[in-house]
């Protein structure tokens, strides 16, 4: 009753898809986190003059990711950019992560009490030394759980890149489902792989958090 036509090759195909998922997640998280830290600090420290930035980033937070992929892909053709689908995916996901990460970083920076910053400035630290030594380490602790959430969310959102022709974990699974007609088995396998990848991230995050919390 447990006979299946699912082969070793199929599993390899799915794992290759998982690798693409990981690559997309890592690249877009790196782009989005770097940009998000810069934008988030700017939003927190210069709230007035960065309001236009907030409007812009709101677009990327508000429009469904699928529409962003399709629109950007069409734009690419219109402008005549010779980018691979993977590059398009990284840019769109990167902007998407930037938009969310900006808010995460902003709330982290704003959580640092002003009195603590006064205390560090009163010791003679400059504006930048205070940011580096006091604000950023403290903001990181506050922002970190939100950032892990974002990472886990993005890992699953990468599945939408199938619409611009990239074969990642979910798309690879669907291809096999179409061929061997065993959706339950294949989707369970794909789901398990997502679960394991998420679990690793969540566990690493939790371990780091506990280490910080021991100090409080």
């Amino acid at each position: 009753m447990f006979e299946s036509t699912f082969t070793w090759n199929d599993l390899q195909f799915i794992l290759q898809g998982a690798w693409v998922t990981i690559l997309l997640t890592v690249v877009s998280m790196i782009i989005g986190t770097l940009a998000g830290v810069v934008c988030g600090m700017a939003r927190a420290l210069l709230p007035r003059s960065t309001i236009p930035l907030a409007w812009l980033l709101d677009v990327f937070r508000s429009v469904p990711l699928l529409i962003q992929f399709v629109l950007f892909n069409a734009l690419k053709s219109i402008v005549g950019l010779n980018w691979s689908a993977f590059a398009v995916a990284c840019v769109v996901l990167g902007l998407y992560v930037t938009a969310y990460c900006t808010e995460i970083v902003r709330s982290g920076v704003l959580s640092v009490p002003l009195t603590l910053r006064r205390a560090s400035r009163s010791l003679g630290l400059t504006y930048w030394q205070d940011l580096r030594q006091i604000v950023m380490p403290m903001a990181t602790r506050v922002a970190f759980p939100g950032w892990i959430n974002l990472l886990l969310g993005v890992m699953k959102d990468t599945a939408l890149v199938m619409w611009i022709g990239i074969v990642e974990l979910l798309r690879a699974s669907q291809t096999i489902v179409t061929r061997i007609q065993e959706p339950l088995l294949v989707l369970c396998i794909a789901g398990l792989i997502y679960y394991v990848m998420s679990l690793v991230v969540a566990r690493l995050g939790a371990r780091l958090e506990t280490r910080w919390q021991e100090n409080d």
Partner: protein
Amino acid sequence: MIEIDNVHKSFGELEVIKGVSLQVKKGEVVSIIGGSGSGKSTLLMCINGLESIKSGSIRVDGTEVHARGTDINKLRQKIGIVFQQWNAFPHLTVLENVMLAPRTVLGKSKAEAEALAVKQLTHVGLGDKLKVFPGKLSGGQQQRMAIARALAMSPDYMLFDEATSALDPQLVGEVLDTMRMLAEDGMTMILVTHEIRFARDVSDRVAFFRNGLVHEIGTPDQVIGNPQRPETADFLRSIN
């Protein structure tokens, strides 16, 4: 020497300091007493440039605090300040809290900064808490750590902004003892305080602030023992 000359300070419409003048000489301990909203804490913040002023001038050893060309970070190195909320940096150990400024601001080596920090922390009675995070300390211990942190910069002046007001009553004594020790070591100090008996004990002069002005100033025996103005007497009666 700290020279405060006809300083005015407003928060928006509200004028909190309305022309205060005060000189504090090297080695002198001056206490500022007065009701809340009398501008006494704000004045301390103005002295090391954490708050701007509207007019007048504040000079520390001849350097104009609020002048454009003044290197305020340099100036702050010689003015230590201890806040009502002790403001421990929660992500650093007690030792690291005290080492931070000597390392970052003065560029001392790790070993030098550590030796300095250990000395100051031992001085305030926290020699056995070096590797502990501030969250594990009592308020009194955190406040003593804040004092050590300020002292590690070898300041010429120490400002105390109601350093014991946020503490549980049984913890006030240990912090006052530390402050008394500093005063006896000859540190120049300005204390904003509600501890009238302590102010009388350690101060060379006491200033009573009222409505953003120095209402009465003199020796502790004059101002606290025998106030000349009725408002001063009323205030002293009200807090006893």
